[in-house]
Protein backbone atom coordinates (compact mmCIF):
# COMPACT_ATOMS: atom_id res chain seq x y z
CA UNK A 1 0.00 0.00 0.00
CA UNK A 2 1.20 3.50 -0.74
CA UNK A 3 0.75 6.33 1.73
CA UNK A 4 -2.60 7.44 0.27
CA UNK A 5 -3.95 3.93 0.56
CA UNK A 6 -2.68 3.65 4.12
CA UNK A 7 -4.42 6.87 4.94
CA UNK A 8 -7.70 5.89 3.32
CA UNK A 9 -7.86 2.27 4.42
CA UNK A 10 -6.22 2.34 7.82
CA UNK A 11 -5.65 5.71 9.45
CA UNK A 12 -8.92 7.43 8.50
CA UNK A 13 -11.08 4.55 9.77
CA UNK A 14 -9.03 4.42 12.98
CA UNK A 15 -9.60 8.14 13.55
CA UNK A 16 -13.32 7.71 12.87
CA UNK A 17 -13.61 4.90 15.40
CA UNK A 18 -11.57 6.83 17.97
CA UNK A 19 -13.76 9.90 17.52
CA UNK A 20 -17.00 7.94 17.86
CA UNK A 21 -15.76 5.91 20.84
CA UNK A 22 -16.74 8.50 23.50
CA UNK A 23 -20.30 8.61 22.16
CA UNK A 24 -20.50 4.83 21.97
CA UNK A 25 -19.20 4.55 25.53
CA UNK A 26 -21.73 7.12 26.74
CA UNK A 27 -24.62 5.21 25.15
CA UNK A 28 -23.31 1.92 26.52
CA UNK A 29 -22.90 3.22 30.07
CA UNK A 30 -26.39 4.75 30.04
CA UNK A 31 -27.73 1.44 28.76
CA UNK A 32 -26.07 -0.35 31.70
CA UNK A 33 -27.21 2.21 34.28
CA UNK A 34 -29.09 5.43 33.62
CA UNK A 35 -28.00 6.84 36.98
CA UNK A 36 -29.94 9.38 39.00
CA UNK A 37 -29.53 12.23 36.52
CA UNK A 38 -28.94 10.94 32.97
CA UNK A 39 -29.54 14.37 31.43
CA UNK A 40 -26.68 15.76 33.47
CA UNK A 41 -24.48 12.81 32.45
CA UNK A 42 -25.19 13.42 28.74
CA UNK A 43 -24.65 17.18 29.09
CA UNK A 44 -21.37 16.85 30.97
CA UNK A 45 -19.97 14.08 28.78
CA UNK A 46 -20.75 15.73 25.44
CA UNK A 47 -19.45 19.04 26.84
CA UNK A 48 -16.10 17.76 27.99
CA UNK A 49 -15.57 15.85 24.75
CA UNK A 50 -16.30 18.98 22.71
CA UNK A 51 -13.51 20.72 24.59
CA UNK A 52 -11.18 17.74 24.16
CA UNK A 53 -11.75 17.67 20.38
CA UNK A 54 -11.25 21.43 20.12
CA UNK A 55 -7.97 21.06 22.00
CA UNK A 56 -6.96 18.16 19.74
CA UNK A 57 -7.48 20.20 16.56
CA UNK A 58 -5.41 23.00 18.09
CA UNK A 59 -2.66 20.53 18.96
CA UNK A 60 -2.21 19.27 15.40
CA UNK A 61 -0.23 22.19 13.97
CA UNK A 62 2.21 22.43 16.91
CA UNK A 63 2.68 18.64 16.79
CA UNK A 64 3.38 18.88 13.09
CA UNK A 65 5.96 21.64 13.58
CA UNK A 66 7.63 19.80 16.42
CA UNK A 67 7.72 16.32 14.87
CA UNK A 68 7.78 17.07 11.16
CA UNK A 69 4.88 14.64 10.68
CA UNK A 70 3.19 16.75 8.04
CA UNK A 71 0.58 14.14 7.20
CA UNK A 72 -1.12 14.89 10.56
CA UNK A 73 -2.82 17.78 8.78
CA UNK A 74 -4.91 15.24 6.85
CA UNK A 75 -6.90 14.45 10.00
CA UNK A 76 -7.44 17.93 11.33
CA UNK A 77 -10.64 18.64 9.40
CA UNK A 78 -12.21 15.36 10.53
CA UNK A 79 -11.33 15.98 14.17
CA UNK A 80 -12.59 19.54 13.89
CA UNK A 81 -15.89 18.30 12.50
CA UNK A 82 -16.16 15.91 15.41
CA UNK A 83 -15.59 18.85 17.78
CA UNK A 84 -18.59 20.48 16.12
CA UNK A 85 -20.56 17.21 16.28
CA UNK A 86 -20.04 16.83 20.06
CA UNK A 87 -20.68 20.56 20.50
CA UNK A 88 -23.94 20.16 18.65
CA UNK A 89 -24.99 17.19 20.84
CA UNK A 90 -24.11 19.26 23.91
CA UNK A 91 -26.08 22.28 22.69
CA UNK A 92 -29.00 20.13 21.55
CA UNK A 93 -29.27 18.43 24.95
CA UNK A 94 -29.42 21.84 26.59
CA UNK A 95 -31.83 23.42 24.09
CA UNK A 96 -34.16 20.43 23.99
CA UNK A 97 -34.09 19.05 27.55
CA UNK A 98 -33.51 22.26 29.50
CA UNK A 99 -35.58 24.58 27.35
CA UNK A 100 -37.81 22.36 25.21
CA UNK A 101 -36.85 24.42 22.15
CA UNK A 102 -38.08 27.62 23.77
CA UNK A 103 -35.94 30.14 21.94
CA UNK A 104 -36.87 33.09 24.20
CA UNK A 105 -35.94 31.17 27.35
CA UNK A 106 -32.64 30.14 25.82
CA UNK A 107 -31.91 33.68 24.73
CA UNK A 108 -32.50 34.94 28.26
CA UNK A 109 -29.93 32.40 29.47
CA UNK A 110 -27.45 33.51 26.81
CA UNK A 111 -27.90 37.16 27.75
CA UNK A 112 -27.85 36.86 31.52
CA UNK A 113 -25.60 33.96 32.42
CA UNK A 114 -21.93 34.45 31.60
CA UNK A 115 -21.11 30.75 31.42
CA UNK A 116 -23.89 30.19 28.89
CA UNK A 117 -22.90 33.32 26.95
CA UNK A 118 -19.41 31.85 26.65
CA UNK A 119 -20.57 28.35 25.74
CA UNK A 120 -23.09 29.62 23.20
CA UNK A 121 -20.51 31.92 21.57
CA UNK A 122 -18.04 29.06 21.29
CA UNK A 123 -20.63 26.83 19.67
CA UNK A 124 -22.02 29.43 17.24
CA UNK A 125 -18.52 30.32 16.04
CA UNK A 126 -17.97 26.68 15.09
CA UNK A 127 -20.94 26.73 12.70
CA UNK A 128 -19.23 28.73 9.88
CA UNK A 129 -16.16 26.56 10.33
CA UNK A 130 -18.18 23.37 9.91
CA UNK A 131 -20.05 24.82 6.90
CA UNK A 132 -16.86 25.92 5.12
CA UNK A 133 -14.99 22.70 5.78
CA UNK A 134 -15.52 21.36 2.25
CA UNK A 135 -12.98 21.51 -0.56
CA UNK A 136 -15.39 23.67 -2.55
CA UNK A 137 -15.49 26.33 0.15
CA UNK A 138 -11.73 26.34 0.55
CA UNK A 139 -11.49 27.04 -3.18
CA UNK A 140 -14.22 29.69 -3.14
CA UNK A 141 -12.71 31.57 -0.18
CA UNK A 142 -9.11 31.11 -1.19
CA UNK A 143 -6.57 29.54 1.15
CA UNK A 144 -5.62 32.77 2.86
CA UNK A 145 -9.17 33.89 3.69
CA UNK A 146 -10.15 30.38 4.65
CA UNK A 147 -7.25 30.19 7.09
CA UNK A 148 -8.17 33.56 8.54
CA UNK A 149 -11.79 32.53 9.00
CA UNK A 150 -10.74 29.31 10.69
CA UNK A 151 -8.73 31.21 13.26
CA UNK A 152 -12.16 31.57 14.91
CA UNK A 153 -11.39 28.22 16.51
CA UNK A 154 -9.01 30.10 18.82
CA UNK A 155 -11.96 32.14 20.08
CA UNK A 156 -14.03 28.98 20.45
CA UNK A 157 -11.28 27.33 22.49
CA UNK A 158 -11.05 30.29 24.87
CA UNK A 159 -14.84 30.53 25.14
CA UNK A 160 -15.10 26.80 25.87
CA UNK A 161 -12.54 27.02 28.68
CA UNK A 162 -14.34 30.03 30.19
CA UNK A 163 -17.66 28.22 29.89
CA UNK A 164 -16.22 25.23 31.76
CA UNK A 165 -14.45 27.34 34.37
CA UNK A 166 -17.51 29.46 35.20
CA UNK A 167 -19.75 26.44 35.37
CA UNK A 168 -17.48 24.41 37.64
CA UNK A 169 -15.90 27.08 39.82
CA UNK A 170 -18.68 26.42 42.36
CA UNK A 171 -16.30 23.65 43.42
CA UNK A 172 -13.10 25.17 44.63
CA UNK A 173 -10.41 24.73 43.49
CA UNK A 174 -11.63 24.21 39.90
CA UNK A 175 -8.71 21.96 39.02
CA UNK A 176 -9.93 20.49 35.73
CA UNK A 177 -10.91 23.78 34.06
CA UNK A 178 -7.50 25.15 35.04
CA UNK A 179 -5.79 22.20 33.36
CA UNK A 180 -7.68 22.84 30.12
CA UNK A 181 -7.00 26.58 30.40
CA UNK A 182 -3.30 25.74 30.69
CA UNK A 183 -3.36 23.45 27.65
CA UNK A 184 -5.21 26.00 25.49
CA UNK A 185 -2.88 28.79 26.66
CA UNK A 186 0.16 26.67 25.76
CA UNK A 187 -1.22 25.77 22.32
CA UNK A 188 -2.10 29.37 21.49
CA UNK A 189 1.07 30.70 23.09
CA UNK A 190 3.12 28.35 20.94
CA UNK A 191 1.56 29.91 17.83
CA UNK A 192 2.28 33.44 19.01
CA UNK A 193 5.87 32.52 19.84
CA UNK A 194 6.33 30.86 16.45
CA UNK A 195 4.82 33.84 14.62
CA UNK A 196 7.26 36.28 16.20
CA UNK A 197 10.19 33.89 15.94
CA UNK A 198 9.63 33.49 12.20
CA UNK A 199 9.14 37.20 11.66
CA UNK A 200 12.38 37.94 13.42
CA UNK A 201 14.10 35.22 11.41
CA UNK A 202 12.85 36.66 8.10
CA UNK A 203 13.96 40.17 9.07
CA UNK A 204 17.52 39.02 9.69
Amino acid sequence: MNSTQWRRRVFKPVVWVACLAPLAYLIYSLYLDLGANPVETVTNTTGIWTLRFVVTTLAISPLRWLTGLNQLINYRRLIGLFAFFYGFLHFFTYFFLDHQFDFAAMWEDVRLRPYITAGFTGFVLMIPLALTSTKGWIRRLGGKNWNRLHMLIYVTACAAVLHYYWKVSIKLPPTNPMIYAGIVAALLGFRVWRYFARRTASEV
Partner: protein
Amino acid sequence: MLIKKAADIRESEVTPKELFLRRREFIAAAGMTAFAVGSALAQNPNAQKIPNLKKGPFNTDEKVNSYKDVTTYNNFYEFGTDKADPAQYAHSLRPRPWSVVVEGQCGKPGTYHIEDILKWVPLEERIYRLRCVEAWSMVVPWAGYPMSEFLKKFEPTSRAKYVEFKTLVDPRQMPGQTEPALRWPYTEGLRMDEANHPLTLLGLGLYGEVLPNQNGAPLRLVVPWKYGFKSIKSIVRVRFVEDEPLNTWKQQQSQEYGFYANVNPQVDHPRWSQGSERRLGEFFRRKTLMFNGYADQVASLYTGMDLRKYY
Protein backbone atom coordinates in the same frame (compact mmCIF):
# COMPACT_ATOMS: atom_id res chain seq x y z
CA MET B 1 -78.93 42.65 27.49
CA LEU B 2 -78.14 39.12 28.30
CA ILE B 3 -74.56 38.60 29.36
CA LYS B 4 -73.52 34.98 29.27
CA LYS B 5 -71.22 34.00 32.04
CA ALA B 6 -69.53 30.64 32.36
CA ALA B 7 -70.35 28.63 35.42
CA ASP B 8 -67.61 28.77 38.04
CA ILE B 9 -67.30 25.03 38.15
CA ARG B 10 -67.97 22.83 35.16
CA GLU B 11 -70.21 19.80 35.62
CA SER B 12 -67.25 17.53 34.77
CA GLU B 13 -65.22 18.92 37.62
CA VAL B 14 -67.78 18.18 40.30
CA THR B 15 -66.88 15.19 42.39
CA PRO B 16 -69.73 12.63 42.45
CA LYS B 17 -71.48 12.59 45.80
CA GLU B 18 -70.68 9.00 46.67
CA LEU B 19 -66.96 9.66 46.10
CA PHE B 20 -67.15 12.87 48.08
CA LEU B 21 -68.65 11.04 51.04
CA ARG B 22 -65.80 8.55 50.91
CA ARG B 23 -63.10 11.22 50.66
CA ARG B 24 -61.55 10.40 54.02
CA GLU B 25 -61.11 6.78 53.05
CA PHE B 26 -59.49 7.96 49.86
CA ILE B 27 -57.09 10.28 51.64
CA ALA B 28 -56.24 7.59 54.18
CA ALA B 29 -55.59 5.11 51.38
CA ALA B 30 -53.39 7.60 49.55
CA GLY B 31 -51.49 8.21 52.76
CA MET B 32 -51.01 4.50 53.36
CA THR B 33 -49.79 4.05 49.80
CA ALA B 34 -47.22 6.81 50.19
CA PHE B 35 -46.13 5.32 53.50
CA ALA B 36 -45.91 1.81 52.07
CA VAL B 37 -43.93 3.12 49.11
CA GLY B 38 -41.57 4.92 51.45
CA SER B 39 -40.99 1.85 53.57
CA ALA B 40 -41.04 -0.86 50.92
CA LEU B 41 -38.58 0.69 48.48
CA ALA B 42 -35.70 0.53 50.94
CA GLN B 43 -33.05 -1.71 49.54
CA ASN B 44 -30.20 -1.94 51.98
CA PRO B 45 -30.49 -5.35 53.67
CA ASN B 46 -27.99 -4.38 56.39
CA ALA B 47 -29.75 -1.20 57.39
CA GLN B 48 -31.47 -1.08 60.71
CA LYS B 49 -35.26 -0.69 60.48
CA ILE B 50 -36.84 2.01 62.58
CA PRO B 51 -39.58 0.35 64.69
CA ASN B 52 -43.02 1.95 65.12
CA LEU B 53 -42.40 4.74 62.65
CA LYS B 54 -45.52 6.87 62.66
CA LYS B 55 -46.92 8.99 59.90
CA GLY B 56 -46.01 12.65 60.19
CA PRO B 57 -47.71 15.81 58.93
CA PHE B 58 -46.90 17.86 55.78
CA ASN B 59 -46.25 14.81 53.60
CA THR B 60 -46.31 15.42 49.89
CA ASP B 61 -48.19 12.90 47.73
CA GLU B 62 -45.73 13.37 44.87
CA LYS B 63 -43.84 10.36 43.58
CA VAL B 64 -41.03 9.47 45.95
CA ASN B 65 -37.57 9.12 44.36
CA SER B 66 -35.98 5.69 44.38
CA TYR B 67 -33.77 4.59 47.25
CA LYS B 68 -30.96 4.40 44.72
CA ASP B 69 -31.41 8.02 43.59
CA VAL B 70 -31.55 9.28 47.15
CA THR B 71 -28.48 7.34 48.30
CA THR B 72 -26.18 7.59 45.25
CA TYR B 73 -26.65 11.19 44.12
CA ASN B 74 -25.40 13.32 46.98
CA ASN B 75 -23.57 16.55 47.65
CA PHE B 76 -21.46 15.78 50.71
CA TYR B 77 -18.05 17.31 50.04
CA GLU B 78 -16.60 15.67 53.13
CA PHE B 79 -16.40 12.57 50.93
CA GLY B 80 -15.53 14.26 47.62
CA THR B 81 -17.07 16.81 45.28
CA ASP B 82 -18.57 14.33 42.80
CA LYS B 83 -22.21 13.29 43.29
CA ALA B 84 -21.20 9.62 43.34
CA ASP B 85 -18.35 10.09 45.85
CA PRO B 86 -20.37 9.96 49.09
CA ALA B 87 -21.97 6.60 48.22
CA GLN B 88 -18.54 5.27 47.33
CA TYR B 89 -16.48 6.59 50.24
CA ALA B 90 -18.84 7.15 53.17
CA HIS B 91 -18.34 3.61 54.51
CA SER B 92 -15.37 4.97 56.46
CA LEU B 93 -17.69 7.11 58.60
CA ARG B 94 -18.47 5.55 62.00
CA PRO B 95 -21.92 6.76 63.10
CA ARG B 96 -21.68 4.83 66.43
CA PRO B 97 -20.60 5.81 69.02
CA TRP B 98 -21.61 9.40 68.31
CA SER B 99 -22.20 12.35 70.53
CA VAL B 100 -23.33 15.90 70.05
CA VAL B 101 -21.86 18.78 72.03
CA VAL B 102 -24.44 21.42 72.93
CA GLU B 103 -23.24 24.84 74.06
CA GLY B 104 -24.01 28.55 74.09
CA GLN B 105 -27.10 30.37 75.30
CA CYS B 106 -29.00 27.48 76.89
CA GLY B 107 -29.81 26.03 80.26
CA LYS B 108 -28.57 22.50 79.59
CA PRO B 109 -25.32 22.53 77.69
CA GLY B 110 -23.40 19.26 77.58
CA THR B 111 -22.58 16.16 75.60
CA TYR B 112 -25.50 14.05 74.39
CA HIS B 113 -25.31 10.56 72.91
CA ILE B 114 -27.08 9.47 69.76
CA GLU B 115 -28.69 6.45 71.48
CA ASP B 116 -30.48 8.84 73.85
CA ILE B 117 -31.32 11.40 71.18
CA LEU B 118 -33.05 8.65 69.17
CA LYS B 119 -35.30 7.82 72.14
CA TRP B 120 -36.39 11.30 73.20
CA VAL B 121 -39.30 11.59 70.80
CA PRO B 122 -41.12 8.95 68.69
CA LEU B 123 -39.87 9.04 65.12
CA GLU B 124 -42.19 9.90 62.29
CA GLU B 125 -42.03 9.73 58.51
CA ARG B 126 -41.95 13.01 56.60
CA ILE B 127 -42.07 12.92 52.82
CA TYR B 128 -40.54 16.19 51.69
CA ARG B 129 -39.37 17.79 48.50
CA LEU B 130 -35.66 18.58 48.44
CA ARG B 131 -34.44 21.32 46.11
CA CYS B 132 -30.72 21.75 45.52
CA VAL B 133 -29.28 25.18 44.65
CA GLU B 134 -27.86 23.46 41.54
CA ALA B 135 -31.44 23.29 40.18
CA TRP B 136 -32.22 19.61 40.67
CA SER B 137 -34.72 18.18 43.11
CA MET B 138 -36.05 14.96 44.58
CA VAL B 139 -38.72 13.68 46.95
CA VAL B 140 -37.35 11.98 50.05
CA PRO B 141 -39.15 9.93 52.74
CA TRP B 142 -37.28 11.11 55.83
CA ALA B 143 -37.60 9.75 59.33
CA GLY B 144 -37.00 11.95 62.33
CA TYR B 145 -38.75 14.26 64.72
CA PRO B 146 -39.36 18.02 64.90
CA MET B 147 -36.21 20.04 65.48
CA SER B 148 -38.20 22.10 68.00
CA GLU B 149 -38.55 18.99 70.22
CA PHE B 150 -34.81 18.39 70.00
CA LEU B 151 -33.79 21.98 70.79
CA LYS B 152 -36.31 22.26 73.63
CA LYS B 153 -34.33 19.62 75.57
CA PHE B 154 -31.46 22.07 75.97
CA GLU B 155 -33.62 24.92 77.25
CA PRO B 156 -32.39 27.78 75.05
CA THR B 157 -32.48 31.14 76.82
CA SER B 158 -34.04 34.35 75.53
CA ARG B 159 -30.61 35.41 74.29
CA ALA B 160 -30.55 32.50 71.84
CA LYS B 161 -31.53 34.20 68.57
CA TYR B 162 -29.90 31.69 66.25
CA VAL B 163 -28.75 28.12 66.38
CA GLU B 164 -25.52 27.04 64.74
CA PHE B 165 -24.68 23.48 63.66
CA LYS B 166 -21.31 21.97 62.78
CA THR B 167 -20.37 18.76 60.96
CA LEU B 168 -17.72 16.33 62.16
CA VAL B 169 -14.11 17.05 61.14
CA ASP B 170 -12.05 13.88 60.87
CA PRO B 171 -10.16 13.31 57.61
CA ARG B 172 -9.69 9.62 58.48
CA GLN B 173 -13.46 9.14 58.51
CA MET B 174 -14.16 11.81 55.91
CA PRO B 175 -11.48 11.51 53.21
CA GLY B 176 -12.73 14.57 51.30
CA GLN B 177 -11.54 16.71 54.18
CA THR B 178 -7.91 16.06 53.22
CA GLU B 179 -8.55 18.58 50.44
CA PRO B 180 -9.55 22.21 50.95
CA ALA B 181 -12.73 21.93 48.88
CA LEU B 182 -14.47 23.92 51.61
CA ARG B 183 -13.38 25.33 54.94
CA TRP B 184 -14.03 22.62 57.51
CA PRO B 185 -15.98 22.13 59.66
CA TYR B 186 -19.08 22.61 57.53
CA THR B 187 -21.21 25.12 59.41
CA GLU B 188 -24.85 26.04 59.08
CA GLY B 189 -27.36 28.02 61.07
CA LEU B 190 -31.01 28.94 61.40
CA ARG B 191 -32.92 31.70 63.07
CA MET B 192 -34.61 30.26 66.17
CA ASP B 193 -38.09 30.69 64.70
CA GLU B 194 -36.96 28.82 61.58
CA ALA B 195 -35.41 26.05 63.65
CA ASN B 196 -38.58 25.72 65.73
CA HIS B 197 -40.91 25.72 62.73
CA PRO B 198 -42.97 22.50 62.62
CA LEU B 199 -41.59 21.68 59.14
CA THR B 200 -37.98 21.67 60.36
CA LEU B 201 -36.88 18.16 61.09
CA LEU B 202 -34.07 16.46 62.95
CA GLY B 203 -33.35 13.83 60.32
CA LEU B 204 -32.48 10.39 61.69
CA GLY B 205 -33.54 8.06 58.89
CA LEU B 206 -34.63 7.44 55.32
CA TYR B 207 -37.11 4.97 53.88
CA GLY B 208 -37.96 3.68 57.36
CA GLU B 209 -34.33 2.82 58.11
CA VAL B 210 -31.58 4.57 60.01
CA LEU B 211 -29.78 7.23 57.98
CA PRO B 212 -27.17 5.85 55.54
CA ASN B 213 -23.71 7.41 56.01
CA GLN B 214 -23.78 9.25 52.68
CA ASN B 215 -27.02 11.00 53.66
CA GLY B 216 -25.55 12.46 56.84
CA ALA B 217 -25.59 9.73 59.49
CA PRO B 218 -26.36 9.61 62.29
CA LEU B 219 -28.24 12.90 62.54
CA ARG B 220 -28.81 15.84 60.28
CA LEU B 221 -30.97 18.85 59.67
CA VAL B 222 -33.85 18.81 57.16
CA VAL B 223 -35.29 22.22 56.16
CA PRO B 224 -37.44 21.56 53.09
CA TRP B 225 -38.15 25.18 52.07
CA LYS B 226 -34.45 26.06 51.82
CA TYR B 227 -31.81 24.96 49.32
CA GLY B 228 -30.29 21.62 50.22
CA PHE B 229 -26.97 23.00 51.46
CA LYS B 230 -28.74 24.42 54.53
CA SER B 231 -29.63 20.91 55.66
CA ILE B 232 -26.31 20.14 57.33
CA LYS B 233 -25.26 16.51 57.77
CA SER B 234 -23.48 14.42 60.43
CA ILE B 235 -23.89 17.05 63.16
CA VAL B 236 -21.50 17.01 66.15
CA ARG B 237 -22.05 20.49 67.57
CA VAL B 238 -25.10 22.63 68.33
CA ARG B 239 -24.57 26.16 69.60
CA PHE B 240 -27.19 28.72 70.62
CA VAL B 241 -25.97 32.20 69.71
CA GLU B 242 -27.06 35.82 69.67
CA ASP B 243 -25.60 36.76 66.27
CA GLU B 244 -26.21 35.32 62.84
CA PRO B 245 -23.76 32.44 62.28
CA LEU B 246 -21.53 32.53 59.21
CA ASN B 247 -22.51 29.47 57.18
CA THR B 248 -19.91 27.69 55.06
CA TRP B 249 -21.22 28.51 51.58
CA LYS B 250 -21.77 32.15 52.45
CA GLN B 251 -18.21 32.26 53.75
CA GLN B 252 -17.05 30.62 50.51
CA GLN B 253 -18.90 32.85 48.00
CA SER B 254 -21.13 35.43 49.62
CA GLN B 255 -22.30 36.92 46.29
CA GLU B 256 -23.80 33.55 45.42
CA TYR B 257 -24.96 32.07 48.72
CA GLY B 258 -26.58 33.81 51.63
CA PHE B 259 -27.61 32.90 55.14
CA TYR B 260 -31.30 32.41 54.39
CA ALA B 261 -31.06 30.39 51.15
CA ASN B 262 -34.83 30.11 50.84
CA VAL B 263 -35.93 28.41 47.62
CA ASN B 264 -37.03 31.38 45.53
CA PRO B 265 -37.66 31.21 41.77
CA GLN B 266 -37.62 35.02 41.57
CA VAL B 267 -34.10 35.44 42.91
CA ASP B 268 -31.61 33.92 40.50
CA HIS B 269 -28.26 32.50 41.40
CA PRO B 270 -25.71 34.77 39.65
CA ARG B 271 -24.70 31.95 37.32
CA TRP B 272 -28.01 30.25 36.61
CA SER B 273 -31.76 30.68 36.82
CA GLN B 274 -33.61 29.37 39.85
CA GLY B 275 -36.90 29.54 37.97
CA SER B 276 -36.99 25.87 37.13
CA GLU B 277 -35.49 22.59 38.24
CA ARG B 278 -34.98 19.04 37.08
CA ARG B 279 -36.76 16.54 39.30
CA LEU B 280 -34.60 13.43 39.28
CA GLY B 281 -36.38 10.79 37.24
CA GLU B 282 -38.03 13.36 34.98
CA PHE B 283 -36.92 14.26 31.52
CA PHE B 284 -37.94 17.91 31.32
CA ARG B 285 -37.56 20.71 33.81
CA ARG B 286 -40.44 21.79 36.00
CA LYS B 287 -41.20 25.20 37.50
CA THR B 288 -39.67 25.87 40.89
CA LEU B 289 -42.20 26.87 43.54
CA MET B 290 -41.79 29.69 46.06
CA PHE B 291 -40.30 28.28 49.27
CA ASN B 292 -40.15 24.94 47.44
CA GLY B 293 -43.94 24.68 47.63
CA TYR B 294 -44.08 25.33 51.40
CA ALA B 295 -45.08 29.00 51.13
CA ASP B 296 -48.36 28.46 53.00
CA GLN B 297 -46.42 27.19 55.99
CA VAL B 298 -43.36 29.45 56.05
CA ALA B 299 -43.98 32.70 54.12
CA SER B 300 -45.05 34.44 57.35
CA LEU B 301 -41.56 33.92 58.80
CA TYR B 302 -40.25 36.46 56.30
CA THR B 303 -42.98 39.11 56.31
CA GLY B 304 -41.52 42.52 55.55
CA MET B 305 -38.12 41.15 54.59
CA ASP B 306 -36.56 41.97 51.23
CA LEU B 307 -35.83 38.47 49.97
CA ARG B 308 -33.58 39.84 47.23
CA LYS B 309 -31.33 41.30 49.87
CA TYR B 310 -31.64 38.41 52.30
CA TYR B 311 -31.12 35.59 49.79
